[in-house]
């Protein structure tokens, strides 16, 4: 066997994956319902609730901005990790390239979203 005892850095990605998974399980369906069904059909919430002005005001407040940032970045970290492992499961043992794409996109998105939201708040 001769185990490779090098410390794995998986915990970083596993925690981001776990946090994103928890969040998407808790909030994902609700967000889909609000943004995809309730608002366009005018159920419960008025169609105006997600108008440009309302959403801009939401993104300009630090709580709203923080919410958007967490949702965008953690959902992507979750998705990237899931896709990377699913590739392995279906027999595509994608190496560094797949790793760069699967974890690079969430990383870039996290930074871009943080920048955009910080500039919108200040």
């Amino acid at each position: 066997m001769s185990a490779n005892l090098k410390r794995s850095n998986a915990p970083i990605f596993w925690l981001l994956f776990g946090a994103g998974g928890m969040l998407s399980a808790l909030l994902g369906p609700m967000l889909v319902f609000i943004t995809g069904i309730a608002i366009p059909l005018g159920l419960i919430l008025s169609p105006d609730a997600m108008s440009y002005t309302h959403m801009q005001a939401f993104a300009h407040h630090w709580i709203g901005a923080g919410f958007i940032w967490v949702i965008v970045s953690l959902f992507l970290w979750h998705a990237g990790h899931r896709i990377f492992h699913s590739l392995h499961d279906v027999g595509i043992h994608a190496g560094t390239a797949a790793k760069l794409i699967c974890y690079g996109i969430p990383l870039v998105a996290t930074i871009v979203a943080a920048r955009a939201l910080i500039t919108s708040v200040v």
Partner: protein
Amino acid sequence: MELQARRQNRKESRPAMSEIEKTIPIEVLRYRPEQDTEPVLQTFQVPFTDDMSVLQGLQYIKDYLDGSLSFRWSCRMAICGSCGMMVNGKPSLSCKTFLRDYYPGGLRIEALAHFPIERDLVIVMDDFIEKLESIKPYIIPKTPRALSEGEYLQTPEERDVYEQFSSCINCMLCYAACPQYGLNSKFVGPGIMALLHRYNMDSRDGGTEQRMELVHSEDGVFNCTAVGYCSEVCPKHVDPANAVNINKTESAKDYFLRFVAPKGAAK
């Protein structure tokens, strides 16, 4: 000579077989390295009674149809862990699986998945044994203890913490069930993690740090993608998936907290 006589005896003491009208087709994966270039399926028609296990079906084949069939078994009562094989694609103890449940369709028996085949249904288990040895599956006392100090005491509550994980019989069904072990056999795997956890959780043991290096490593718990099939096939309800999961959390904690309180267990 004696064996012959015993076999003869068995034949005679088993006239019931000829009166049985139910037979079931059993497909067996054969691999005889001296004649087969690759494993091939062979079908046997086996007479059976409702109380016969799949293992007894194989024993019937070996005794009456083809003496060259090789398979491992010992206890016939789901305790030794040696009779694991794939029954219709599912990792099973053949002594705990019954022919009647496959009647009239028949069944296919193959060597445990994810292990090299040595011969017929006998697999090469070196990888598992090496892993088992590597986790030090015994109690490592916290401090050396003289005989005169008497026995270790443990309360029922302390025992409950690990008891479930101590039921493992090393049958390797969970390894045959684990898709990640199938893809990468360097992964420490479910059953060994259950045993590792069993010793780490024992109040008499002080060996946790020595064992955790493997858990934290590239071959450790993070190869698991939480499929959970290992726990489903485990004949002893050990729930190895739970042991893996608990140790993912432990390992993640250690990954970040080691800078706060370094223990120096991992490189």
